[in-house]
C-alpha cells in the first residue's frame, strides 16, 4: 500500500523556485497497475522519483507499505529501495562495462546474495524476458528493445514489491514496446505493484488506473475496464 498525503516538491536554485509537485495526494493498492500521464513538465518523473524513494518530498507525508518515509535519511531510503523496489528507465541505464548477466546481478549485489545464487537468479530472470541467450554480451551489442528487456529483468530479479517504470517504451518501436508492456502486466498480475509513467494512451490502457497530472497537480483519475 502506497499513500501520498499532500506531497509537494520544490526545486530551488539561487534565483528560481520551481514547484514540481503541488499538494499531491494519491493512494495505490498493493498489486495495482497504475499509469501516470500528462504533458511535459507536469511533474510525472518527479512523482515517480518520490514514489521510488529516489527523492524526498519538500512537504507532506508518504506512507510506503506502512512506513512513513518522508523524513527518512538517505541510508534508510537506500535500504528500502534495495529490499522492495525495482526500476525501469526510459534510457535503459545499463552499465556499459558489465555483461548482460552481470547487469542483472547488480540488483542482487548489495543484498549479500551469494554469487552462485545470484547468477542462477539472474539467468532465470533473463529467461523470463527471453534474453538468456545473450547473457554474455555487452549492452552496446544489443538493440534498444533488447536492452530494455534486460532492464526489466534487472527490475524483476530482486522480487520487488514495487516496480517503477519511467516511460519504459519511449525509446522503443511498437513491437518491442508491446513486449515490455506485456512483461509489466504479467508482473502486476503476479502481485507486484507497478507504477508507470507514459505518453502513450494505448500503453496506459493496459493499466488498471490512469492518473493525469497537470502543473504538479492531479487533475483526474480514470479506472480502466478490468
Amino acid at each position, binding site marked *: 500500500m502506497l499513500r501520498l498525503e499532500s506531497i509537494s516538491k520544490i526545486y530551488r536554485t539561487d534565483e528560481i523556485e520551481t514547484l514540481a509537485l503541488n499538494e499531491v495526494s494519491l493512494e495505490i493498492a498493493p498489486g495495482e497497475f497504475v499509469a501516470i500521464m500528462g504533458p511535459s513538465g507536469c511533474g510525472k518523473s518527479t512523482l515517480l*522519483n518520490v514514489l521510488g524513494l*529516489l*527523492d524526498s518530498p519538500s512537504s507532506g507525508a508518504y506512507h510506503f507499505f506502512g512506513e512513513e518515509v518522508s523524513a527518512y535519511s538517505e*541510508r534508510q531510503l*537506500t*535500504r528500502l*529501495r*534495495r*529490499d522492495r*523496489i525495482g*526500476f525501469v*528507465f526510459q*534510457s535503459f*541505464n*545499463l*552499465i*556499459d*562495462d*558489465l*555483461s548482460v548477466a*552481470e547487469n542483472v*546481478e*547488480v*540488483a542482487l*549485489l*548489495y*543484498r549479500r546474495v551469494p*554469487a552462485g545464487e545470484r547468477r542462477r537468479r539472474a539467468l532465470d530472470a533473463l529467461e523470463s524476458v527471453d534474453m538468456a541467450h545473450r547473457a554474455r554480451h555487452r549492452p552496446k551489442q544489443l538493440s534498444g528493445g533488447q536492452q530494455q528487456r534486460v532492464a526489466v529483468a534487472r527490475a524483476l530479479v*530482486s522480487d520487488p514489491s514495487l516496480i517503477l517504470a519511467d516511460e519504459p517504451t519511449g525509446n522503443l518501436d511498437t513491437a518491442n514496446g508491446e513486449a515490455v508492456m506485456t512483461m509489466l502486466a504479467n508482473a502486476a498480475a503476479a502481485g507486484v505493484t507497478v507504477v508507470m509513467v507514459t505518453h502513450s494512451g494505448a500503453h496506459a490502457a493496459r493499466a488498471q488506473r490512469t492518473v493525469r497530472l497537470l502543473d504538479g497537480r492531479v487533475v483526474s483519475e480514470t479506472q480502466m475496464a478490468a
Partner: protein
Amino acid sequence: MLRNYLAAALRNLDRNGFYGAISIAGLALGLTAAILTYLYVGSELAYDRFVEDSAHAFVVTSELRSPGQAQVVSDYAPAWIARQIPSAISQASATARLAYDQVSLRRGSVAAPEELAWVDPTFFSIVRLPAIAGDPSVALADPAGVVITRSLARKYFGVDAPIGETIELDGRQILRVGAVLADLPSETHLTQQIFASGRASFSRLTRIDSAPSADAGYATWLVTSQPEQPVKARFETVRLRTYIRLRNPDQAPAAAMALNRLIADGAIGRGLPPGSSVRLNLVPLTSLHLENFRGANLGAGDVRASRGGLIGLVATASLVLGLAVVNLVNLTTAQAAERAVEVGVRKVAGARRRDLFIQFVGEASLQVITATALAIALVELSLPALNAFLGKSMSFPYWSNPTAGLALAACVVVLSLAAGGYPGVVLSAFRPAQALKGGAVVPAGPSGVRFALVVGQFTVLIGLVVAVSVVWMQTGYATGQGLRMDTEQVLVVQATPCRSAFEAEVRRLPGVRAAACSSRNLLGLDDFDPVKNVMDANVAGGPTAHADMGLVDQDWFSLYGITPLAGRLFSRDRGKDELPVQNYPELQRGSVVINLAAARALGFSTPAAALGRQVQVGPGYGEFEIVGVTPDTTLDLKSARVKATFFLVDFANYPADQVLSIKLDGDQIPETLRTIDQLWRNSGQAGEIRRQFLDDYVQRLYVATIRQGVLVSVLCGLALLLACMGLLGLASFTAQRRTKEIGVRRALGASRQAILQMLIWQFTKPVLLACLISWPIAALVMRSWLDGFAYRIELSPLIFLAAGLAALFVACATVLTHALRVVSRRPVEALRHE
C-alpha cells in the same frame, strides 16, 4: 561482489585506455624517480654502517673561529690530542690516529702512486673492518706491517691473500703484508686501500711524535730547515684524524667537554692566531660523512653530499611523485561524470556510499599496483646506470629486506587511498535522481579542485625549472669565470723544493707555454688549512689583519692571468722582490703583493691607498712594502668569503709543500706529458710523479654539486613530462565533454580559431596563475642558496620569465595538438554527439 567490481574496473580501464595509460605511466615514472632518490639518500645516510660495532666509534672534529675568516669545521684534530685522551676521557677504551700520505708502491714490475694511511696499531680495534685473511688488529704491531684490501692485493700480488709478502714503499722502505681486508664498499669515509703501521720509523706518525714542539700549539709545528728559528711560516702543519672507542656511546658529549677543558686550561693557545678559538667535538663514525666539513678533508676525491642537498633532493622527488598522484586524481574525477549513470544504477539497486567508496578506491589501487610493478621493473633497469654515475653500488632489495618490502606495501596503500579517496568520496555522493537524468552531471566543486591541482602542478614545475637553471648557471660560472684564474690546460705537479733542475728543464720544453712555482695552499689542493700559514699583519695605525701567507715566483701571476687592481706584480728586474735567507732574529724586508680582501682587512678603503705602505707581519717575521693589490682569487667558491692573502717570493726560507704549475700548449699535450714524466724519473726524485690537471681538480670540488644538479635536472624533466601528461589527459577530457557546446558554437558561426582560443585560454589560466605563485618562492629559495657562494651569478628576472614562458609554451602545445583535432570535426557531428 569482488568479481563484479573487478570486472567493471578492468573493463573501464580498457575502454578508457588512453587516460588509464597516462595515469599509470605517469605514476610509474614518479614512483621510479622517488624510489631511486630514496635509495640514493638512504645510501648517503648509511655511510660506515658496515663497520662492526660502529656505534662505539667516534672521531674528534674541530671548529675553528678566526676573526675575518669564515668558521671552519674540519674532521681533523691537533696531533697531540690523542696522547691526552687516556687521561682526559675515562670512557675511552682505545684511541688511534690516522694520517694520510701520497706514496709510490712497487712490487716487481707493478708500480703506482697510492694514497696510504699511517695508523696507530689500535686503529682496527676501533674501526673494525671485515678481513679475509690475517688479523688487522695485530698486523700493525709489526712496524713494517701493512694491511691492504683485496683489490690492492690482486693488483700488486695477483692473489687474494699474500700474507707475509713484501712491497716497496717510495723506493726505499720494505713493508710486509700482515692482513687483507675485504674490499670496502663505496659508502665509507675511508678512501685509502692500504694501512701502514704508525710504529714504523719512517711513518708520518713517528715524525710527528718526535718533533720537538709536538706538544705545543693548536697545529703541531715541525721544524724543518733551521731548528733554532721556529718561525711560523716555515712549519708544516700536521693533520690527523683521531678515532676514539667509547665504552658507552652516550658519554660522547661528556667526553667532548673533557677535551675542551684541556683547551680552556691553556694547553694550547700559542699556535692560534690571536682572537681565534677552537672547539672540539666527538662525532659518531656513521655521521662523519654528512658533516659539513670544509677545508682539509683527509683523502682526495672525497665528495660528500650535504644534508641540505639531500633534503632538497628528497623534497623534489616527493613533489614529483605528488605530481603523478595529482594526475591520477584529476583524471579520475574528470571521468566521474561518465560513471554517473553507473553510480545511479548501483545506488538505485541499494548500494550504500561505503560500497561505492570501496569500489572506486579499489579501482585506483588497481592502477597503483600496476604502476608499482612497472616502477619496480624500471628501478631495476636503471640502477646500474645510476650506480655508475654516482660511483656507488646500491640495490633495491624489496624481496629480501622486510623493511623495504613493507615500505613498498605501505606506499601502495597510501597512494591508493590518496588517488581513490577523493574520487571515491565525490562519486559516492551523487544523488541517484540527478545521476540518472542522463547526460553529464558534474557535481559542484571538483572542477575548482582540478583547477587548483593543475595550478599546483605547474607551480612546482616552474619552480623546478628556475632552480635547475640557476644551479647549472652557477656551477658553470663557478668552475669557469668565477675562478678569476685562468686554469685551462694547467698541469700542477707536486714538487718540493719547486726550484730545481726538473723545473728548469720543464720550462724549456716546447709544449710548455709557462711555468711557475708556488706554495700548495694558494691552489687549494687538499690544503685548505686555516691556520697553517696565517700570520698577523698590520699597517701602522691600522687594524690587525689575519692573513694567509702564500709563496709565489715572479711568473705565477701571469701564468694564471691575474692582473693587479693597483700597483704592480713581482718581477725579476726588481731585486727586492725576492727575499734572501733570513738572518734571524733580524726581520725580513722586501716587497709584498696583497689581495683585495687583505687590503680591506688592513683598513684601506681603496686598493690604491695601500700602495707604498709598510706592513708588519709577524710576530717576528718581517716588514714589507706593499707594491701591488690583486683581485680576490680563490678555488674554493663554496666558502662565502675569500681569505686575506699576502704573496711573497721567499723560496730561500720556505720549507715544504710546493707545487709547479705548468701551462701546456693545447696542441701537444700527450707528448708533453710523457716528456714531463720522463724528466721527473730522470731527476732522481723519489717515487712517481704526482700531477693532475687543475681543471679536473676544480671539477672534482664540485662533483657533489654537479651530481645533485644532474639529479635535480632529471627530476625536473620528469616533472615536465608528468605535467604534460596530466594536462593532455585533462584537455582531451574537457574537450570531449564540451563537444556539444563546441558544435553549437560552430553552428552559430564561431570560427575554428575562436574555438581554439577558447580551449587554449582555459588551460593558460592555471599556468599564468602558477607563474605568479612560483616566481617569488623560487626567487627567495635560490637567492638564499646563492648567498653561500663568494662569487655568484646575478638572479636575472629573465630566468623567471624564461621558465614561465617555457611552461606556457608546453601547456599550449599540449592542449593545441588535441584542440586542433576537436575543432576540425564538422559541427553536425558534434551536435549529434550525446
